[in-house]
């Protein structure tokens, strides 16, 4: 382990003290922050050359961001346990037999969730919960009560909206109950996705999902056919909207700050041929170093019960190669060429965006990491949604808020161009005005059309609902108001949401 300066130690000590004294952080948030600060004192990773100038500099100068993963990863970033196996076999480490009825099923799952680590210390995937619970439904009333308490406990104890549950693709009684309950409860956690495929998912179930989403901003819709074709049947949607392998997950996620990278280039050619390749190379090498440490040194896969009992397998893991700020990148490059055309509003600008994606995609296919065998030894591209602290940087390949095309079809055409590149996640969000007319079939028709045209993932919410989708995760407006007024709130994502709405005008999306 390399040594560090006393100055850095002192800075960290001060940050720890500030954390202890913070008026707005909850106890859990403080504990997590303290752990991150302690971790930041370690120096064990082999940094590739040039990384320092790209990563360890103030945000405006950063070209790469590692999303606060810390200096010595003690677990993979996202973990996706095989809960079906747990329901079938129980767990020796947790001293639990397989559940026999609905009460045991929800109770055992809640226990299991406590032991699923992640970058936020809360599980980012809690299962295809309809399929998990459906076999235990005997009496519908009783099941509804059990599932209500289950969802309530998740919302109040998994204090982070990156916690994600899946339902579908097929309708089940449990699936309907979950949708019904989500409508009643209006909770931010868990995030929820319906794996949807026309012809596989019954229309009636899909319409119930649309109605729930127009009521409490979830579920979102994942293109089941597309994900299956890339990742196979055993994929899940975790965290924001990340496609990952069941029984695996993602070791790490770093992101290219495309807007900042474009600033460093002389012109488009220079960007494509010199600046971008350098940064891509460095970020891939940095991710390689992180992965190597997790697999070879951290001991996680040797010692954690999840791996020992076969709820996860090392060879089901991959890593997410992220990017953010495509809009700013394209606009900056156009400006350098003396052009005013803008991403999302001009054919030419969008074409440049697609060319950039082709370059990143080709690089990613070429770069190999032996620990990502499950995905052909390649990382998975990910359109990252941004951090609350980001300024002047739009999520992934989204059109900046306020610049969305007047026409909804044009907006969707734009999604069609970019979604196909990102098996580990990209998504667009549309607030819908339902005050004039209730027509859930309207939304379902749009989902059906979009999924035929290579759109991957869509979210909707009613323009005035309390639960709103910030960038990928959900937050309650009423909770953000509380936080703004200086009160502390249960979920850590509320603060992210507040930052996002203030920096990113996230509540000003074009209503459809």
């Amino acid at each position, binding site marked *: 382990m390399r040594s560090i300066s006393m100055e850095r130690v002192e800075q960290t000590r001060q940050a720890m003290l500030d954390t202890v004294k913070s008026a707005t952080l909850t106890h859990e948030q403080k504990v997590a922050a303290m752990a991150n600060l302690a971790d930041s004192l370690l120096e064990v990773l082999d940094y590739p050359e040039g990384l320092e100038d790209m990563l360890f500099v103030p945000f405006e100068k950063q070209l790469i961001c590692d999303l606060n993963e810390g200096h010595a990863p003690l677990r993979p970033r996202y973990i996706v346990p095989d809960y079906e196996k747990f329901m079938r076999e129980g767990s020796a480490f947790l001293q639990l037999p397989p559940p026999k009825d609905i009460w045991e099923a929800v109770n055992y799952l809640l226990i299991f969730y406590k032991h699923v680590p992640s970058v936020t210390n809360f599980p980012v995937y809690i299962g295809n919960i309809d399929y998990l619970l459906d076999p235990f439904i005997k009496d519908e009333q009783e099941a509804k009560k059990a599932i209500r308490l289950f969802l309530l406990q998740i919302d109040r104890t998994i204090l982070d909206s990156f916690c994600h549950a899946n339902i579908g693709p097929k309708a089940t009684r449990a699936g309907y109950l979950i949708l019904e309950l989500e409508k009643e409860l209006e909770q931010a956690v868990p995030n929820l996705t319906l794996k949807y495929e026309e012809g596989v998912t019954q229309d009636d179930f899909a319409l119930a999902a649309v109605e729930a989403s127009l009521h409490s901003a979830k579920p979102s819709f994942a293109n089941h056919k597309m994900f299956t074709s890339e990742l196979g049947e055993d994929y899940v949607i975790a965290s924001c909207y990340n496609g990952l392998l069941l029984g695996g997950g993602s070791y790490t996620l770093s992101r290219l700050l495309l807007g900042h990278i474009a600033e460093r280039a002389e012109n488009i050619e220079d960007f494509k041929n010199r600046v971008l390749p350098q940064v891509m190379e460095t970020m891939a090498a940095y991710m390689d170093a992180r992965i190597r440490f997790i697999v070879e040194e951290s001991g996680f896969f040797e010692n954690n019960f999840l791996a020992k009992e076969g709820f996860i397998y090392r060879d089901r893991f991959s890593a997410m190669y992220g990017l953010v700020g495509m809009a700013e990148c394209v606009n900056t490059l156009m400006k350098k060429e003396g052009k005013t055309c803008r991403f999302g509003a001009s054919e030419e600008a969008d074409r440049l965006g697609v060319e950039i994606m082709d370059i990143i995609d080709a690089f990613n296919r070429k770069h190999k990491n032996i620990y990502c065998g499950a995905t052909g030894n390649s990382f998975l591209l990910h359109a990252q949604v941004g951090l609350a602290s980001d300024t002047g940087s739009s999520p992934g390949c989204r059109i900046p808020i306020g610049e969305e095309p007047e*026409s*909804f*079809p044009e907006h*969707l055409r734009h999604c069609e161009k970019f979604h196909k590149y990102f098996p580990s996640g990209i998504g667009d969000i549309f607030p819908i005005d339902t005050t*004039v*007319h209730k*027509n859930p*079939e*309207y939304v*379902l*028709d*749009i989902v*059906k*059309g*979009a999924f*035929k*045209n290579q759109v991957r993932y869509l979210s909707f919410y009613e323009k005035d609902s309390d639960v709103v989708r910030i960038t990928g995760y959900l937050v309650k407006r009423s909770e953000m108001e509380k936080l703004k007024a200086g009160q502390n709130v249960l979920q850590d994502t509320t603060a992210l949401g507040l930052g996002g709405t203030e920096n990113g005008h996230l509540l000003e999306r074009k209503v*459809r």
Partner: protein
Amino acid sequence: MKKALVNKIIPFSCVDGPGNRTAVFLQGCNFSCQYCHNPETITVCENCGECVAYCKTGALTFTAGKMSYDSSRCVLCDACIRHCRKLSSPRTELLSAQETMERVRRNMPYIRGITVSGGECTRQAEYLKELLRLAKAEGLHTLLDSNGSYAFREDEELLDLCDGVMLDVKEADVQLHKELTGCDNQQVLDNLVFLAEKKKLHEVRTVVMAEHFRAENTILCTGKLLKSYLSEQNIRYKIIKYRSVGVREPYRSRLVPPSDEMLERLGKLAEDIGFKEIIII
């Protein structure tokens, strides 16, 4: 092929029939309803050129006795429409059915169908049938939004090409219908029964105002005429609250929106008559 005067095309509409549809609005109507909320669709532009002066963006030009309109410069301020004294609009386009279909195709596969509305779509029947034929060929569901003045009975071809009609029954009483729309309603009531018999009556619509005219009687009368069909078909009844937005003077100051209680009462009435799906908007 005959071209039609198109007032506008809404690429995605959630209010013109089931699911997501492209709605095509044709220019020109033979009724002149007092409560019309887009009266600028009623007549065809006479090329008088008066409105040009009100356009601040240069979207309108008047040369050699003809109006022309450049949609790329228009900011939809509606000044031209407000100043037209002939219940018309310079913002129309002459399109063939093929050209219209080209626009519709841009919205596929996001839409399940098209709805042709107006104005009154049946006024340009040739074009209408060609457009419906093209849409059907693409597998799209086709609906018409009509004031019921067209003799559907005599146009089997049109009936075959459309999957359903959303029919306005504005007023059951002949005299009151004349007062409200300028025309009588015999044809409308004949269509009401005829379309139901042919299983092409997708929806009946009545706009409700506070005092004028008698929505209650209209709903009762509609129910009576449809009595034998209601048990075996789902014919939607849409009860529409009168809103003053877009309505021209002097009617705008005269007509009063109904109370919510009144709408609810009417909804209940329609339900009692046997309508299974009632929408109040």
